[in-house]
């Protein structure tokens, strides 16, 4: 077994013929063991990089086939444990896009984006997949997150399927599944996250070059931030709504897939990620391939960090030291050291069109959803956050997007 090599290496200190023979024997034994293990080479490769000691469970939504898959990753590798259909008609696509776990890990919520024209937020029991409620929201509900107290689900209404006019963030009472507020923010509100204390909600406005902050105590926009390079500015209050005409020539960049045109220095923000301590918020500038770091106290720019091509979604480790970004135009994931702002590794993904990030509860693994293209399956790649290498991969339904970590548990051997 490859895993036994360190002990072999440890015997290199043995001297003399007997020692040499012992060393050769050990090497031969190791080689034989490796050859015998060839059929399970992939599994051994995982173990060589630190096989998980327990099982990790992750939910992922596949937008083109109306399915949510539960992925189990453990010592035996990664596999789809079960799937759940989340659509509404055999000949239409509901388009599950965002996925969010409740803090008590009892429920998961799925935003179905397509609608006619409005999408929905659906609630399921995490243990049984039983449907527990549904509520109609706005146009193309996308990124979703449950507040830390578990009372509310925040969902951005991306409004991809309509005129480019200001859209909103829906707030849903998680128990009753009733939409209690719809907060107008900006055009194409996209990737959004709550601060750890649940008091602030940040969303990126893909077509407005803005970050918008909602005060969750008042359910109103409290501040916004202009993200364009050289024009960075923090502003109190809500942005002025802009009409469809003003966006008529704005290039949506193939939703992060097309490189910026020459001379285009716009940000086209696709994700807002507050730091664990709440002092900073990072915004992925998909077009300019940068991460903008903003001080939440002074509401000023701290840094513009270079990022991977087409940086799209962000996630952080629970200890707050690392930022993980999906690079939509690069078929890769970046792991960034928060303190230095430096990219520690850029890990290739199995397929192109890299989408979301979920981090395990012990910060050892990042789970990356990859949409794929056309008839390719979607994929979840699993990255070891210690070795910074991809250690497993499992195919799911087409256009894998919304992803969230459910729980870890003792390994099923």
């Amino acid at each position, binding site marked *: 077994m490859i895993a036994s090599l360190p002990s072999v290496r440890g015997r290199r200190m043995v001297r003399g013929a007997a020692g040499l023979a012992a060393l050769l024997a050990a090497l031969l034994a190791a080689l034989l063991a490796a050859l015998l293990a060839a059929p399970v080479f992939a599994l051994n490769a995982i173990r060589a990089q630190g096989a998980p000691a327990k099982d990790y469970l992750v939910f992922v939504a596949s*937008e*083109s*086939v*109306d*399915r949510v898959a539960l992925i189990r990753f453990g010592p035996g590798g990664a596999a789809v444990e079960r*799937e*759940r*259909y*989340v*659509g*509404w*008609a*055999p*000949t*239409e*696509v509901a388009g599950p896009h965002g996925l969010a776990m409740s803090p008590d890990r009892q429920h998961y919520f799925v935003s179905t984006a*397509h609608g*006619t*024209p*409005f999408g929905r937020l659906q609630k399921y029991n995490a243990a049984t997949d039983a*449907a527990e409620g549904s*509520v*109609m929201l706005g*146009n193309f509900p996308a990124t979703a997150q449950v507040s830390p*107290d578990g*009372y*509310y689900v925040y969902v951005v209404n991306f409004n*991809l*399927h*309509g*005129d480019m006019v200001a859209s909103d963030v829906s707030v849903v*009472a998680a*128990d*009753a599944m*009733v*939409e*209690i*507020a*719809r907060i107008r923010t900006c055009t194409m509100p996209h990737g959004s996250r709550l601060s750890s204390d649940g008091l602030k909600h940040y969303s990126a406005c893909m077509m407005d070059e803005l970050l918008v902050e909602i005060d969750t*105590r*008042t*359910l109103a926009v409290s501040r916004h931030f202009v993200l364009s390079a050289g024009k960075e500015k923090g502003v109190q209050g809500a942005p002025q709504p802009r009409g469809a005409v003003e966006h008529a020539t704005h290039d*949506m960049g*193939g*939703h*992060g*897939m*097309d490189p910026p045109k020459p001379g285009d220095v716009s940000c086209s923000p696709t994700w807002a990620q507050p730091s664990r301590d709440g002092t900073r918020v990072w915004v992925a500038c998909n077009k300019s391939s940068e991460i903008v770091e903003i001080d939440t106290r002074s509401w000023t720019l701290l840094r513009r960090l270079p990022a991977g091509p087409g940086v799209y979604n962000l996630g952080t480790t629970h200890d707050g030291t690392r930022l993980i970004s999906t690079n939509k135009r690069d078929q890769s994931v970046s792991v960034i050291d928060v303190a230095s702002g430096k990219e520690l590794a850029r890990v290739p993904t199995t397929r*192109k*069109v890299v989408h979301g990030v979920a981090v395990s509860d012990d910060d050892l693994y990042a789970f990356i959803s990859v*949409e*794929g*293209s*056309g*008839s390719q399956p979607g994929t979840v790649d699993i990255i070891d956050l210690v070795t910074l290498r991809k250690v497993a991969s499992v195919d799911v*339904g*087409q*256009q894998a997007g919304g992803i969230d970590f459910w729980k870890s548990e003792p390994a099923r051997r």
Partner: protein
Amino acid sequence: MRALAFLMVPSLALAQQPAVARINVTPSAPRVVAGETLQLQAEALDAGGRPVPGATIRFQQTAAQFEGAVDDKGLVHAGAVGTIPVAVTAIVQGQKPVIRRVEVAVLPGPAATIVIEPRALKLLAGQSMQVSGHVFSKAGDVRPDAVTWTSAAPAVARAGADGSITAISPGSAVVTAAAGGVKESLRVEVLAANVGSVTLTPSQPQARTGDVIRFRLSVKDAAGKEIEGLSPTWLLAPGHGEIDADGAFVGYDAGRYTVTALLGARSVQTTVTLTPRDVRRPATVVGSVVRTAFPTSEVWVHPNGKVAYLGTHLGGDRVYVLDVADPAKPRIVDSVIVNARMINDVMTSEDGKVMVITREGADNRKNGIVVCTLDDPLHPKPVGEFTDGVTAGVHSAYIYTQPKFGMHVYLTNDGTGALHIVDIGDPAHPRQVGTWKTPRADAGRTLHDIDVRDGLLYASYWNDGLVILDIGSGIKGGSPSNPQLVSQYKYDLNALCKQVEAVGGPGFVRGTHTAWRHKDYVFIADEVFTLADEQLLFNNRPARAYGRLQVLDVSDIAHPRPVAFYEPEYGGVHNVWVAGDTLYMGAYNAGFRAFDISGELRGDLRAQQREIAHVNPSDPKGFIPNSTMTWGVVVKNGLAYVNDFNSGLFIVRIEPRAPVVP
């Protein structure tokens, strides 16, 4: 102000804050007239009924976005009649939100018009006739008002409280219908009952089931002079058919029918005999191509009749190209792969030189259409695409060429419900020339399918029914760049599909899905599913579709009116095709059906035995094995190219009638 006060409260004080026990909303039974506004008020109260300081109150409309809007302060803007549900939430940081649901009844505006049916009466003394009065608001909303009836000349014609008019003696009377301060009058002419002769003559004494027979009532006075325009009451026995107020009769079963025209004390009867329609024929599947990887969507046959194109659904990114020169041995010879995960529609131009493929689910979310040239129909060549404004996706497309305006493709926009018109005269450089959308609130506007005939475009507008536009017919001066509304036929989908809600619970999918113009009729089909079948679908088991095909008489294009319908006993009605006097249909679970639509159409087409053929396409190797879900059909050279969502393409020939062997 409460919210601001709350923000300044120290956290200790928050912890001691009483919990919200309930929310008091005023008015307690909110009602507002369509077009007006209403301010809701709410207060958070604790268990003792005392106001909870610092509680934030939010109002949020939870449904009925088509009927009005509610802002977060509780101001209701009532747009249309219905019920607007509102969630009123009391929010206190650290506490579970308390929600009170209220429903705002949106009522029709004051009565503005009364429509009386029939519009005029000519009765014989002693005759009675029931009339009806419908009350509408200025916006055209139906009101439930009771109508009172009075006669200005009760000695001539008496008006009953229920709208029954009784002719008493010769003369003229004006009967007035009144409701809510609005009046409408009905002129009643009463003639002496000295009738000499009454005869009733059918347009044909013998016919087949489903044939429309019109009856001519001839009434002559004692002098033998014809009395024109009398309004009889029609009776029918046995009741397996229907007869309209205009005397048009259609029978459903073979046999003898007695039709009676009742004129007070006088009546006249006649009989007609119906024979079986006898159109049933065998159908043979002459060839098929079963697909497993994806469900398959639209089928199209090239004008040369030798090549078929088949779209793919639910993750499908390709159009299969099939050589069907030998229909018994269809085979896939090529495929066009595009950036999409659903190809709902594919169509060629009439000259067979250009093909358009719709795209949804592109990985860069820039959907739209792909335009191909067909120099070699077996190997389409993508040469252009159009995405501007339709990146949300295009579900359906229709290519139509007019000598005056050139070749255009008419597109549905998934995002806005708008119609886009794109010039594809140069296939490599599609160019938008116009757009059109229903003049209504954006919410709920969905355009699903398009059909064009003789310069008139028939748009299946889901919630808004059928919309007819002039794009070059000359009726309204429309053109591709400037479509003009001709008429709209909107109907109550919820009422029509009530059984679906009864079976599958509240909330269901329903809308006007497709349309086809043929002679003086437009066939419109609804797409209907319950929301209760998700587990079946996930487990690859068939989910049931519902739906009705309605036949609209558009001989007066400005006023389409329903005259006939078809509803399968099990299944839906999806796409239709008409060739000659036959209507072909993909009926989802009900498979492939063909109907005789010759002659005038009235009533229930299924009951009157107009169905010619039925095939249930399915295959053990299908995407869902042995499960029929027939999408649509194209007819070419006497063959029906039938696509089944779950199983692929089936080529069906309707055979001649089998000879009866004694």
